[in-house]
């Protein structure tokens, strides 16, 4: 198991190497070159030349690439052209917000999706089945930003149950440790800060959870239906086991295999794609920040974002593979 994890982490190296090459080429191929990206269209030829010298763009390409890689390794992603702060610092501040949001959304999607999918399969053809399948179709069809605005309009502007924007009430003056606001609140025992951060997470997490929830319901339902027809379920029934044992030990466990795969893919997607939700709820996570960076042509930020997403995908897939080998002995790793 340990060797498997190490091997998979080592696989990160060629992945990142290939990615760095792509990013490097991309940077060189920017319209007008990196100096235009930094200066915009109005730079004078002298300014351009100065920047080229400063950035070492007049040196041989291999030397440039070597320096680029060295900076990557030191986690020096350059300076954001729009905020003038180090990209790494910006990410350290914002990425935890997105992680918190994604985890909350996935907890909602899994916590509701798996039981609902299971029940739909057991009550196949009856009301609950039709309701959940139809509901999940609606969940997939409704755009996230629209759902976000609807939730905001109902639950925060009309009912005032939840805050409409932000990650935490700034007047609380909460202490920052890890930038995971809920975790910080728990660690520093500022319970009100933790609760407030959690409260801010509810609406965006629901909006973000809608699509994964719908997908998980459907996959679980289909998978359970398939497993229910398996011979070993009949064997379990023939042994006279209680319905509960049959359900938990024999049906659900086998039905979880495809669900685990999709959860991994969904989680990776959410981490990189929470842009709309974060924008709607003015939630200062990585998504909203990157959306802005695209508009501003803030290339260092985009580059850092791409790198982080690549690492996240590899790690999430590692987790999925590990959970797989935990669930299914046939693919167990040594």
């Amino acid at each position: 198991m340990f060797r498997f994890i190490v091997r998979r982490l080592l696989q990160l190296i060629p992945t990142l190497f290939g990615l760095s090459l792509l990013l490097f080429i991309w940077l060189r191929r920017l319209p007008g070159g990196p100096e235009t990206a930094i200066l915009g269209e109005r730079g004078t030829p002298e300014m351009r030349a100065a920047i080229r010298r400063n950035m070492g763009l007049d040196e041989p390409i291999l030397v440039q690439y070597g320096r680029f890689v060295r900076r990557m390794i030191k986690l020096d992603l350059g300076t954001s052209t729009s905020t003038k702060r180090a990209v790494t610092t910006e990410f350290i501040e914002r990425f935890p917000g997105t992680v918190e949001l994604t985890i909350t959304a996935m907890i909602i999607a899994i916590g509701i999706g798996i039981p609902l999918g299971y029940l739909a399969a057991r009550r196949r053809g009856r009301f609950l089945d039709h309701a959940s399948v139809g509901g999940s179709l609606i969940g997939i069809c409704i755009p996230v930003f629209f759902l976000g605005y609807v939730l905001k309009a109902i639950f925060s502007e009309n009912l005032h149950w939840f805050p409409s924007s932000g990650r935490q009430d700034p007047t609380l003056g909460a202490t920052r440790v890890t930038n995971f606001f809920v975790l910080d609140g728990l660690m520093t025992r500022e319970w009100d800060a933790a609760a407030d951060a959690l409260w801010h997470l509810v609406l965006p997490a629901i909006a973000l959870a809608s699509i994964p929830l719908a997908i998980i319901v459907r996959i679980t339902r289909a998978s359970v239906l398939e497993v229910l027809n398996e011979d070993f379920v009949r064997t379990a029934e023939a042994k006279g086991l209680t319905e509960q044992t049959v359900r938990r030990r024999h049906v659900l466990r086998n039905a979880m295999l495809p669900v685990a795969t999709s959860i991994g893919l969904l989680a990776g997607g959410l981490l990189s794609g929470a842009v709309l939700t974060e924008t709607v709820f003015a939630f200062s996570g990585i998504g909203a920040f990157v959306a802005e960076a695209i508009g501003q042509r803030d290339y260092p930020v985009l580059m850092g974002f791409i790198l982080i997403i690549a690492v996240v995908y590899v790690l999430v897939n590692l987790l999925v593979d590990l959970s797989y080998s935990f669930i299914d002995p046939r693919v167990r790793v040594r």
Partner: protein
Amino acid sequence: MALLEVDDLSVTFARRGQRAVHAVDGVSFSVDAGQVVGLVGESGCGKSVTSLAIMGLLPKQPGLRVGGKAVFDGTDLLQLDDRSRRDIRGRDIAMIFQDPLSSLNPVIPIGLQVTEVLTRHRGMKGDAAAKEAASLLDRVGIPDPKRRLKEYPHQLSGGMRQRALIAMAVACQPRLLIADEPTTALDVTIQAQILELLKGLVRDSGTALLMITHDLGVVAGMCDTVNVLYGGRVVETARRRPLFREPRHPYTVGLLGSVPRLDAGRGEKLNPIPGSVRDLLPWPDGCAFAPRCARRIDDCVGQPPELVHTYDGRSYRCVNPEPVPGTVPAPREEESA
């Protein structure tokens, strides 16, 4: 009194807008304590559905109707509620299935799959259950049982898997064991081993065995009494020797005749029954086998043939049965002579 008395059992699958399918259409037979009874027939004759109906394992679906009686030790199994059925299954009546690989849960160690029966019906837990499970595996001839308990189904060979399933089935010393084609998915050499094992277990424990098979070789080697099924109904019941020596129902004759023989001459044709199970006449309209029968006469169609009981305790459902050899030579034998 018989241990299991199946009386006029019928299973119908009805679909909206379609004609109902009578998978089992009035099956009656009985199994005495300690006896080995065969239920023989081609695919689709209702063997498996009969066994699943007795166990209450038919997939619950709208349009499923089960009629008749299946009285086990004085209780009609078909009238029991789900909970009492679960109490009986695995404890008093156990079952083994055709494909040992798909019949075992792939993600759970063999050990747990054995101990869960012990826990459910005998209240055994922890070390006691593990010890008993190991001794069960040992009894069914699995070497190194302690190690096998920790292994998963995919790590075992086909024969070992079937042995493991048998261990689970006999874990609570059931009074009736139903084996649904237990050797069909196995190699011939392994088949023989598994049949020997079943025979030994049944002999030692006094468990009755209901053997469901299409393989007359299995029947010849094991069964005390044989029921031949056709079109969801028993067409002939006899003790093993009389059945093989002088089959009366033309279908039984056909079944026996279609077994390939090793001593047949080269190039000699096999002797299958013409037609297929699909060409059956619904029982109320006459004999279901009539469309394929070589001995068909006019009386075969019109009303279902009654069950005829003979003096030596056998019975068949035919208006023009095969004559007993010695009196009039059977036409089939004439041809081969």
